[in-house]
């Protein structure tokens, strides 16, 4: 009986793709599921929040300056009477967009350079010297030069806000891929000498396939950690740059800038510091747990358990 049942079962069941396995594993990671929920909620709020809370974040209500949280202004208002909730919603769009894009760019560059220089000995020397160069370049003058050379052409081509966005993302991405590259390279160097790589080599696997199938999945965890660190880093760097006048126009709130502006008021209006601080921490925390879950889910050895 059981045998027949099994025999009939097997053909009817469609072959499960690898992604289903990954999802299955991911679903069992409680932290990751909760984090996904939090992260999606944050995304939802910052994208659609302006329809739910239609106050203009740039509107100065001079009759309602420096207000504490109330029904009219759930997060209070700032020194010019701007609604803090509306500012948080709009700031989140920019911060998350900058953070995610810059992190992805840095991750892509870092992984590419790291894998290439770890795997191909001939590229190692030159790529690592370039990495050294980028590590040594002072960030601020570099950004000043980029601003000077590219701000006007980019603003002309994409409009002032999109132009600055591209510039910021490129700048942060270009200056933060090096640690990822160094770390990935170190892992690849060790990995390359492992038995399964040698055996794959012996059956004639092409370098491209080798990297995609065998190397990349095995350097996933440092990449994931870099991703979490990268998004926090990008959000904070953006705020530091805006603070120095190298970022978005001043009437363009971001979480980092809100945090920066509020630091002065830590003792008088602590809530102004808490909101953006909380938002940044929650975002980073949830990205980290999602990364953890993904890493576990992508690890075939863990999946078997």
């Amino acid at each position, binding site marked *: 009986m059981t045998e027949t049942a099994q025999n009939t079962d097997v053909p009817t069941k469609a072959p499960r793709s690898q992604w289903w396995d990954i999802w299955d594993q991911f679903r069992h990671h409680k932290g990751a599921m909760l984090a996904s929920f939090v992260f999606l909620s944050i995304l939802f709020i910052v994208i659609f929040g302006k329809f739910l809370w239609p106050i203009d974040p740039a509107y100065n209500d001079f009759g309602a300056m420096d207000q504490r949280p109330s029904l009219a202004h759930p997060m209070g208002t700032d020194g010019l009477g701007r609604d803090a909730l509306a500012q948080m919603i709009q700031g989140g769009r920019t911060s998350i967009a900058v953070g995610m894009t810059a992190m992805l760019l840095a991750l892509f560059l870092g992984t590419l350079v790291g894998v290439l220089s770890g795997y191909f000995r001939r590229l190692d020397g030159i790529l*690592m*010297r370039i990495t050294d160069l980028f590590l*040594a370049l002072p960030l601020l003058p570099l950004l000043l030069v980029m601003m000077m050379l590219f701000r006007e052409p980019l603003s002309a081509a994409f409009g002032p806000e999109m132009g600055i966005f591209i510039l910021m993302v490129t700048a942060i991405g270009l200056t933060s891929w090096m640690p990822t590259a160094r770390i990935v390279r170190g892992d690849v160097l060790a990995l390359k000498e492992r038995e399964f790589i040698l055996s794959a080599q012996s059956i004639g696997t092409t370098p491209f396939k080798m990297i995609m199938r065998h190397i990349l999945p095995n350097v996933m965890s440092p990449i994931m950690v870099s991703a979490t660190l990268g998004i926090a880093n990008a959000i904070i760097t953006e705020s530091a740059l805006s603070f120095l006048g190298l970022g978005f126009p001043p009437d363009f709130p971001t979480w980092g800038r809100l945090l920066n502006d509020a630091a002065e008021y830590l*003792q008088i209006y602590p809530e102004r*510091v808490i909101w953006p601080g909380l938002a940044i921490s929650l975002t980073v925390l949830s990205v980290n747990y999602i990364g953890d879950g993904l890493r576990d889910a992508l690890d075939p050895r863990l999946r078997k358990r």
Partner: protein
Amino acid sequence: MLTFTIRRLLLAIPTLLFIALVIFSLLKLAPGDPTANVPLTVPPEVKAKMREALGLGQPNYVQFYKWLVQFFIIEPQVMIDHFFGTDFADGKLRVISWQWRGPVMDVVVQRLPQTLWVVGLSYVVGAMIAIPIGVISAYKQYSWFDQIGTFISMIGFSVPTFFTGLLLIVIFSVYLGWFPSIYDTTLVVNDWPSFVKQLKQIAMPVFVLALYNAAQISRFMRASMLDNLNQDYVRTARAKGLSERVVVLVHVLRNSMIPVVTVIALGVPGVFGGAIITEQVFKVNGIGDMLIKAIEANDLPTVQTLTFIFAFLIVIFNLIADILYGILDPRIRYD
């Protein structure tokens, strides 16, 4: 390994010269003016004279050549003179800052102690608590220890240091009055009370920075340990009957150190570079403060010198990391 080291060291010379050239061009290209901080009450034509007196009128290649000679020939001579009482460098022009019109290296020497005290100590403390936390978190994945560790380390690097620093100052300096809010760089530690005073003034900046560093290192440590704990060799080691202690602390830890070594090797030059924001928050006035002030003031010789020293350390420590890879995992060969 020896030939590799020698080859890399030789290769480092042209690399560093190239980096120096790139930094110089970048600084030259960047908009800025060393007289930007001079009040507006000083007329523009006087400012033009001041710039001329700084040697800004010279062609760029002359300025770069002068810096090379000053940094690579005269500064080492000054150092030899200092230690052996010789007079090779007498009357020769050293690398002179545009802000204080004095030798840049003298101020580097002046700033180094507080940077090492604060940034160096925090790195050591950070690494020392991060590695055990990373190991335990990975070994007991998803235990309460791991959850708390993850949470704290996330807070550690998602909350910017300027904010943690400010918060500590408000609590411990303003309300409790335990620690000074301003670092005294003139304090000489020569007896017990002055040592206590020194401990008090470094307590907050070291805590802030150590938290940040530990957060970062422990995440990499944990991830790398997790990767290795499920490897076949771990099972083999356990099957051989090795104690759990030996398996984890010898086999797994050693194989997990590669990314951590990389992160630490990337971080150590940063110690000498100082921690710009933390130094500013606690008024430590170390090398990080020196660099940011020099950038703000467009003090090209100082920025060039500091970034070059920084580049030198990066190249050296990345070489050290490469050598350590070979020691940690003898299968890695570079020849």
